[in-house]
């Protein structure tokens, strides 16, 4: 997937949800979104504020995961 496509899809999510911050429920929905839309699998450790706390951090996290593929 191209980086721009990744950013476009994260924008779609940004339009319906605020940044999760440290809220566990919101972090879990963000993790669900990432797995669902990008076909990635996250470990429990990866479902955290550092990776998914803001839409910007989510984008960086997803891009990094794709690069590592």
């Amino acid at each position, binding site marked *: 997937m191209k980086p721009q496509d990744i950013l*476009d899809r994260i924008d*779609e*999510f940004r339009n319906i949800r605020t940044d999760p911050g440290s809220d566990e*429920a919101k972090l879990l*929905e963000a993790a669900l*979104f990432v*797995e*669902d*839309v990008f076909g990635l699998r996250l470990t429990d450790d990866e479902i955290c504020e550092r990776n998914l706390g803001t839409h910007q951090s989510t984008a960086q996290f997803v891009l990094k995961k794709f690069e590592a593929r």
Partner: protein
Amino acid sequence: MCGICGIINLDGGPPPDKNLLLKMMGRLRHRGPDSSGYYRDDQVGLGHTRLSIIDLEMGSQPLCNEDGTLWITFNGEIFNYVELGKELSGCGHQFRTRSDTEIIIHAYEQWGVNCFERFNGQWALALWDTREKKVIFSRDRLGIRPLYYTFCNNKILFASEIKAIFADQEVLRSLDPAGMAEIFSFWSPVAPRTAFRGVYELQPGHYAILKDGCFEARPYWSIRFPMAGHETCQSESKNAEYLRELLIDASRLRFTRSDVPVGAYLSGGIDSSITSAIVSKYTGSPLKTYSIRFMDKEFDEGPFQHEMVKRLGADHRDFKISNEDIGRVFPDVIWHTERPILRTAPAPLYLLSKLVRESGYKVVVTGEGADEVLAGYDLFREAKVRLFMARDRGSAKRMNILFNLYPWMVRTPGKAPAFARSFFGRDLDLSDSGFSHRPRWNTTSAIRQLLDDDFQKEMEGVDVEQELLSSLPEGHQEWDPICRAQWLEMVTLLSGYILSAQGDRMLMANSVEGRFPFLDYRFVDYANQLPARHKLLALDEKHLLKIAFSDIVPQSILQRPKQPYRAPDAASFFNADNPDWVDDLLSEYMLKKAAVFSPKAVVSFTEKCRRVKGLGMSNTDNMRVVAILSTMLVYHHFIENDGEGRGDMPPPGPVTVIDHVSDSGL
């Protein structure tokens, strides 16, 4: 919208019985109270009761082509009949009426059975081709209009409703254990099965040809989804724009193609708010809206309805329904559903269509179908959450996503975490094609614990879940799991319950036609090709629809949590006004006679219901109550009695008669 019926001889026996045909038509009087008619020759009898909506003067049926070699009885609307008429005129066809019925005849002459692919509408019909000596049956793509048939003593009987088929005393009347197994799993029988042994329903999206005694059904359309990730258009804004155009056109067609005024249902949810807003904004017609309200605040959506009414400036009518109202009309409701149901939700819709009719309207546009086509049901959100859990079953965190489901509800999973984990945490097998529906099927199957042993054994003869899953189209493994869930929902709940028991039957019971813009096939085909995330983005249901119509529907309605349409169940039958029929049907004598449920188990269960007056009962127990009572009513109406007890009436006049059989021939 109308009622259709017919008798077809299979072996050159005596001509179809005129009195039977008239009796069948009489039983469909509610579907078409404006007039009726029949055609009869030595082999075929076609009956029709008419609810006149298009071409009020000339649209009587049965109707034929110019030389009388092709006859039709038709129930429904072909909304693109104007465009088809122009195309057919260009091919040299000439028309005597302005009706869509005549268009079908000429379309069949021009294109044969390929004509059905060209129709945009909702229909069930039978065409008698006297030249080729064959009868063609056809039904719309998603099963909006019903068509039943049975084989009996070398003849076929067909009708819009089973009660018309049962007008023939020779037709077997017994419950079909396999059909009942489907109801007690999926909420509805799956066509061609019905609740009755030997009575079949033509599948949605199919036509059938009867020739030389051979009946063969074939599909002309099917529900298809693309491979996940290979959807044609990934752009959210472009998809929203096109979805909007399609829905506006679908609503406009359904609102304007009528010679009588068209009203709209307004539930207070997103779907009917959008269709009403489209009508208001794009047709320029005055808008008449109707709503149900509930005395019980848990089910009432009044404030949202009124917000939308105010915004639209609609001429609005609503009425409040009590639990007692539901208990009172429930026997009538089951007379019309002709199958056991698991929720009382059709009952308020029966009362609503009565209000519509009494106010002088006979056509309404509703938001039906949006939840299936755009993944709006809670079941899809639950499936997504369970998929997330299933992808790492050892995870310490993932189970907690359950608490994101229904945080606004009194009985939210967050308040009963152990139960939620146990309920949603079962059957997490990602390779299971029925993954999305296992919780529902498991819950529904709890009804079976109350069944009579012998009936239970008969039901177990067919694995209906496996049968359904094996009918999933080739390549479904490559679909997004949400699309697979949508397919299951459309094939079971949509046509078998929402559009029939809760739709067509509750509307037609009071001679009202429903029209469903979300089920325009162009809209459905387009929605099916969308990336699944545009329908359900994370846990945001009907995502694209909200974007597409954010300018004409207020955010308070677009963003409100999905409230499933529900009505009070057990509390409708075990309250202070406990209706007499409840005690009668739940007596040990009646239960033994019907031989579906174990009298001992039911008596013990209903004692518990009476103690609590039907209040505070679990979801499963509420479902059991409705299942038992509706099954017993089906037994009472159609097996113990033959329908005459409800007052057989003659077909509505004036009656058009085209009879090629002399009386001496009978």
